[in-house]
């Protein structure tokens, strides 16, 4: 027991002061979902296959909306994306008290020049 007491005195706490310190992550951790809107073709496959209905895609207005509160970060959309523009980043999002919507508007499509 004395050994345990000494160990605990020297070692310091076993916990991290999250959220003041960042949480530990590994290279494969699923932290949050991001989109590279330049490549997005607004096909809506991610919306169709989202188990949590967290994604809204509007082809006319060229917007992609994610409800970060509803997203369960399963990575299903990433595997369905035909243009590989969705990806999962390792860091966790900061704690929040209300729902956060991320709406990203894509650039205007380049008008094809007539040959």
């Amino acid at each position: 027991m004395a050994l345990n007491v000494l160990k605990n005195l020297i070692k310091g706490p076993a916990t991290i002061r999250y959220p003041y310190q960042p949480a530990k992550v590994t290279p494969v951790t699923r932290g949050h979902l991001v989109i590279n809107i330049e490549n997005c073709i607004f096909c809506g496959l991610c919306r169709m296959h989202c188990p949590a209905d967290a994604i809204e895609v509007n082809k006319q207005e060229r917007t992609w909306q994610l409800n970060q509160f509803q997203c369960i970060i399963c990575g299903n959309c990433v595997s369905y994306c035909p243009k590989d523009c969705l990806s999962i980043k390792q860091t966790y999002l900061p704690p929040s008290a209300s729902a956060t919507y991320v709406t990203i508007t894509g650039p205007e499509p380049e008008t094809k020049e007539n040959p």
Partner: protein
Amino acid sequence: MSKKIIVPFGPQHPVLPEPIHLDLVLEDERVIEAIPSIGYVHRGLEKLVEKRDYKDYVFISERICGICSFIHGATYCQAVEQVMGVEIPRRAEFLRAIWSEYSRMHSHLLWLGCFADSMGYENLFMDCWKVREKILDVLERTTGGRVIQGVNRVGGVSRDMDKEELNRIKSEIPGLRADYVELTRIFDEDLTVQSRTKGIGMLPKDTAWELGAVGPTIRGSGHAVDARMTGYGAYDELDFKPVVRTEGDCHARCMVRTGELFTSLDLIENAIDRIPEGDIIVPVKGNPSGEYYAQTEQPRGEVIHYVKANGKKNLLRHRVRTPTLANVPALVQMLAGCELADVPVIVLTIDPCIGCMER
């Protein structure tokens, strides 16, 4: 004859990890009857199967429960694969077995911690959860999720472990085993634990069978009932032996769980030694048609995933018989005749997971 009073217990109670409500009919300090009632966290996940693609539903089936998530996902996949006649690669089955055993260990350690807490032994609670953290680290490193692994797919698994990772896992096993020896010693020999658990919450062998109890609850009463003995997935090659105790009290159920920690380590070691090379996923085309009852072993006991499909991309019915639901009759039986102060300990020994139970 003294007066009967009814004490409501739960759904919010300091020792209860999840919301179950019990009406305890007391005569003095003695419980003569307990009437459970549930429904505080019913989410209708089984109904959701009619609205989702059967492949996307894997992620929802994993979220039935936050603790035994991996095995729910694996069992659902197993049921759909059987309906569709898909044979998944052997390596995927081994990987599922390894992750299943890791999630079993983390669930058992979580339970041991909560159980120690229900007896008011908070240091032991922290010790158990400290060891659990090491297992969560392995899960996060290999799958990307601490509690919800999300690697199951219909047709296999989505993530592989390379040789280096497997060796690293194997090299960590002796350290974990030393931790388990120390925890087991405390749960087995400590006076506090013994006086709160020995001879309490008796479930005789015949009653346990009659009431259809599953998991550590029935194995603590002397029946070797474990779905892993049927050899589903990779378990037919892993030399599995069930842990059985004959006393039938709270202490026996606790010791079954500590014993299973070691069994899981052995299974992981065997699986790493025998894992074949090859693919981890096969492409699945078409829609399922038919029905199947998949039976696997969760930390809390045997779970049944029933899948019924009629050739559409949405399944017709997905029914999960979770172990907690099967253990509730046994809990009612154990509570009759116990002291009021022992109720929290007895309720915890079936490892109630109400989120699972109500889906």
